[in-house]
């Protein structure tokens, strides 16, 4: 049986340099090493991609199955050293024992009324702080495993549509760079697969048909629609 680690015909050629043989071997090895390391990440993003594209799939419903907990909490007055919305939000979160990514959802019109959300996969905190009375109304919504997975797909702490949002939790940063690493790994896997395919002369034509068809369809959406419409 021909295995994926066997040298290809091109590599056996006397003209093939040692470096090229080594490159081919390591390209192949790194292709499946990267694939194996990223496997669970790929499954997470593929499955949640499907679920996010089909919000009507009831088995993956999370928001309607959430558990809500409401509480009223007293906080100590925020000192003058606590400055800005971010500083105040962090101080309130510290007092409430909450950690997560801050989400600005309303525009603050009253200096004493401060509403914001805190999110982390599986948990949503809706905080309404009355700074004049040093009092907080807290709603904590907890979602199921599907909810955790869906949030992981989109949990970057920023939004391309809302410049107000910025990453303010260290773990969001870690997760965002993990998503970058998965994306970079995927790009590497695609490029390494193209190289491996090109090194198989007998598969070049059918491979080119498959690649050409995919590129044509994908290209229609990425650049073609703008020209057509």
């Amino acid at each position, binding site marked *: 049986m021909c295995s994926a*680690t066997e040298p290809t015909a091109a590599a056996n050629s006397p003209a093939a340099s040692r470096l090229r043989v080594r490159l081919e071997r390591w390209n192949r090895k790194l292709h499946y090493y990267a694939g194996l390391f990223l496997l669970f990440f790929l499954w997470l993003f593929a499955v949640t991609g499907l679920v996010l594209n089909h919000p009507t799939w009831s088995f993956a419903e999370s928001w309607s199955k959430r558990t809500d907990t409401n509480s009223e909490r007293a906080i100590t007055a925020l000192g003058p050293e606590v400055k800005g919305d971010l500083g105040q939000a962090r101080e309130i979160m510290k007092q409430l024992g909450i950690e997560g990514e801050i989400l600005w959802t309303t525009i603050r019109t009253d200096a004493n009324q401060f509403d914001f959300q805190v999110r982390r996969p599986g948990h949503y905190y809706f905080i309404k702080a009355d700074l004049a009375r040093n009092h907080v109304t807290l709603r904590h919504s907890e979602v199921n495993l599907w909810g955790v997975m869906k949030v*992981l797909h989109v949990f970057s702490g920023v939004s391309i549509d809302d410049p107000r949002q910025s990453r303010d939790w260290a773990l969001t940063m870690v997760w965002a760079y993990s998503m970058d690493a998965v994306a970079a790994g995927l790009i590497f896997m695609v490029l390494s697969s193209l190289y491996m395919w090109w090194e198989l002369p007998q598969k070049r034509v059918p491979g080119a048909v498959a690649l050409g068809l995919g590129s044509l369809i994908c290209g229609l*959406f990425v650049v073609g629609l703008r020209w057509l419409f």
Partner: protein
Amino acid sequence: MRGRFYRLIRDLHLYLGLFSSPFVLVFAISVFFLVHTWLPKFGSDASTTRVVSGLLLPANLQTLSGRPLIDALKPVLEKAEVPGEVGFVQHLVKEEKLIIPVTVPGRETIVTINIASRGATIVTRETGLAGAMATLHRSPGEHAPAIRMNWFYLKAWRWLADTTAYLILFISVSGIYLWYVLRAERRVGFVLLFAGALSLFGLAYVLSH
């Protein structure tokens, strides 16, 4: 028999992988745009404004909302030569205006219809290749399923995005099989598989607890 099965899986892994690779690249590259809210301009960033008048608006336009409103607006937008996916329509009741976002991958258009004068201001902004990829990555997305997919091409994109996800699942499972057949690589493979699982589940645990 085993050899034939192996070759079949290996060929499917190769050809389906090649077919899906442009889609995978679009999704992977756009991750950087979405995670870092960075949209490099590979093309023009032109914004144009034009005005149209004499629009034939449905009589019951002000009473409609959601998908029926979008369906009613589609012929109007077609007449105004604004094709694309219609987003969430804002109805400014006092001003008798409708603000309609329309998206074609790589182009965003805001149509402001003045119901009383039956005129519209159309502002079009080219978002370029990066914008197109970011739009496609997020389409259709989880929000407002009732109004989404109102343009055939984005409906077709959803099928392609789904197909890409299914192909990734198939390619990863077939990849496991192809790796497992290579006995010499099993130990390293298991270590990497375990390290990957530990990284994902460890991160997910820390983030959610």
